[in-house]
C-alpha cells in the first residue's frame, strides 16, 4: 500500500467511527478527553419484544435495562427539557472526559449506569434506592428535583449534565450509556462512557448475583442484540426514595 492509499484508509476509518461510535472496540483511555468503552450495539426493546421508540417514552419515568452485562442495570429517562451539551466531567482518578448530550428529537433521552459510584447501590428485583426523581417530587438529597438520587447515602447526580455529582457522598459521575438514536426513532446502546465499577460490582455482589442470575458466569454475560427495557416499578418490587 502506498502512502496515498494508506492515508485514504485512515481517513475513511476515522469518518466511520465519528459517524458511528459503536464500531470502535476496546478501551479509549486517552488524554484528549475521552474515557469510553464500546460494547456490542444493542437495541432497546420493550417487554413485548417491540422496539422502544424515543418519542414514545413517557416523560420523567424511570425505565431500566441491563447493559453491557446481563446483570448491570441502567436507567433510561426521557427528560422534560433538553440536556446540556459537551459537558466536561472528571473521574475519581482525575481523568477528564466529555459527555456529548442526550439523544432524541429534543436531546431529552438519557441513560446512565444505575450503579452508584459511592458504594454501588443499584436496583435489584427486590428494591431500588437509586432512581430519577421527577421535577415535582421532593428529595432530601438536594434542594431541587429532576435529578438522579441514590437514597442510600443521599448522593445527587445532574441528569442533564452527564450525571455530574451535585451533592452527597459520591465523588464521581455515574457512568453514562452512550445511546444512538436511529432515523426510525429506535434507541441503541453502543458503549459506556466514564468510570464504570463493573468489576468491583461483580466481586462485591457475588452472593446477590447468585441469587438473581443463577451464578457469576450468567451475571457477567455480555448483552447481545437487544436489551429488555421496562419501567423501574416493574423491575423492582419496592422503590425507596428519600
Amino acid at each position: 500500500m502506498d502512502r496515498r492509499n494508506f492515508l485514504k484508509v485512515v481517513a475513511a476509518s476515522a469518518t466511520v467511527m465519528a459517524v458511528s461510535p459503536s464500531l470502535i472496540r476496546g478501551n479509549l483511555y486517552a488524554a484528549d478527553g475521552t474515557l469510553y468503552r464500546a460494547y456490542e450495539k444493542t437495541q432497546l426493546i420493550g417487554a413485548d419484544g417491540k422496539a422502544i421508540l424515543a418519542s414514545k417514552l413517557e416523560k420523567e419515568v424511570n425505565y431500566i435495562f441491563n447493559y453491557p452485562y446481563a446483570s448491570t442495570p441502567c436507567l433510561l429517562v426521557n427528560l422534560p427539557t433538553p440536556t446540556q451539551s459537551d459537558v466536561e466531567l472528571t473521574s475519581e482518578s482525575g481523568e477528564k472526559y466529555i459527555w456529548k448530550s442526550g439523544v432524541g428529537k429534543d436531546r431529552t433521552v438519557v441513560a446512565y449506569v444505575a450503579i452508584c459510584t459511592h458504594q454501588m447501590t443499584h436496583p435489584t428485583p427486590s428494591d431500588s434506592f437509586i432512581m430519577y426523581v421527577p421535577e415535582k417530587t421532593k428529595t432530601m438529597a438536594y434542594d431541587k428535583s429532576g435529578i438522579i438520587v441514590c437514597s442510600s447515602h443521599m448522593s445527587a447526580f445532574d441528569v442533564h449534565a452527564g450525571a455530574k455529582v451535585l451533592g452527597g457522598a459520591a465523588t464521581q459521575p455515574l457512568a453514562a450509556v452512550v445511546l444512538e438514536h436511529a432515523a426510525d426513532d429506535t434507541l441503541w446502546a453502543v458503549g459506556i462512557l466514564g468510570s464504570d465499577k463493573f468489576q468491583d460490582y461483580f466481586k462485591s455482589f457475588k452472593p446477590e448475583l447468585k441469587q438473581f442470575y443463577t451464578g457469576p458466569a450468567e451475571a457477567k454475560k455480555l448483552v447481545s442484540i437487544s436489551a429488555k427495557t421496562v419501567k423501574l416499578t416493574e423491575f423492582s418490587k419496592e422503590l425507596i426514595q428519600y
Partner: protein
Amino acid sequence: MKKSLITFLLTGLLATSINAAEKDHRSMLMKDMRTMLDSMEQIQRGGLYSSPDDMKAGIKKLQGTLTSLEGDDVKWILPKDQKYAYQFAQKTASMLRLYSNDMIASIDAGRMDDALEDYNQLLKQCTSCHIRIRNW
C-alpha cells in the same frame, strides 16, 4: 374538671409507656450492636487463627442479632431524625444475612478467599449503615 383530670392522667400514662417502650427498644439495639461487634471480632479472630469453627460461631452470633433490624421494630430503635430511613437499615440487615450465609457456604466448601471477601463485605455493610444512620 374530673374529665379533664382523667384525660390528663391518661395522656401522661400513655406518654410514659411510649417513652419506656422506646427506651426498651433502644437498650435492645445497643445490646445487639455490642453483640454484633463481638461477633465480627470473633469471625476475624477465627480467620486469623485459621479456625473455621470460630468463624462459624461468630456468624451464628451475628445472625442472631439481625431480627431486630429486619422487622418493623427497627423504626423504634433508630435515632428520631433517622426513623424515616428504616428501610435502609432493613436492607443493610438483609445484606448482612446474605453475606453471612454465603460465608458459611464458602467455609464449608473450603473457599477461604471467598469467606474473607464475605467478611470484608459484612464490615462494609456495617460502616455503610453507620455512615448513614449515625451521620459520620
